[in-house]
């Protein structure tokens, strides 16, 4: 399956890029998507995750074509 991955704000700055594309076997969780892309970098504490623009737990299973996002706490308003 193909997963589109996005990073925002301070996390994007830290990683040095805004997007990734992951081709992997089906059945991965959000946390496993991160671990496959960043095997040497644990997801920083407090980071939030979204799947297809909905907030998601790290344990949520992703599917082919999903967009997974990682970002720090929001600070709008």
């Amino acid at each position, binding site marked *: 399956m193909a997963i589109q991955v996005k990073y*925002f704000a*301070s996390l994007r700055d830290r990683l040095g890029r805004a997007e990734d594309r992951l081709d992997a076997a089906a059945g991965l969780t959000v946390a496993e998507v991160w671990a496959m892309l960043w095997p040497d970098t644990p997801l920083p504490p407090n980071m939030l995750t*979204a799947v297809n623009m909905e907030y998601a737990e790290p344990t949520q299973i992703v599917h082919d074509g999903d967009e997974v996002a990682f970002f720090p706490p*929001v*600070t*709008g*308003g």
Partner: protein
Amino acid sequence: MKIELRARPFDPLLELGFYQAGLSELQGRYGATAIFIGTMRDGNDGEPVRGMTLEHYPGMTERHLQRIVETAHREWPLLDALVIHRVGELRPNDPIVLVAVWSAHRAAAFAACRFIMEELKSKAPFWKREDTAAGARWVEHNTPG
């Protein structure tokens, strides 16, 4: 109901006036309008701030703002609501966000306006980067409501 992101500076009072002028069929029905305007300050955490960049997650931000306002409409007897939020480069004193709600009575208007702001600040994917003398820094968390 209108929810908008703006990439350029906007005048909240002008926007409010325009929008309310379009609410002619609500004239005489709303007794209460509660409004909040968030404005960029020139300092934060004791340090001068010269500018700010508001990043967002295109698509997700609009979706969540929409949902927050819809939730407010279900929770309180609102007649209308307007939310405008800046993205992009801001200078001190630039408006960041405008939230306005119209209702027959003040209790609903106050509560819904406050609810929309708190939800927006905790759920809508926006991120602030401040430009200080020491360089750019990401704001790590919002002031408690």
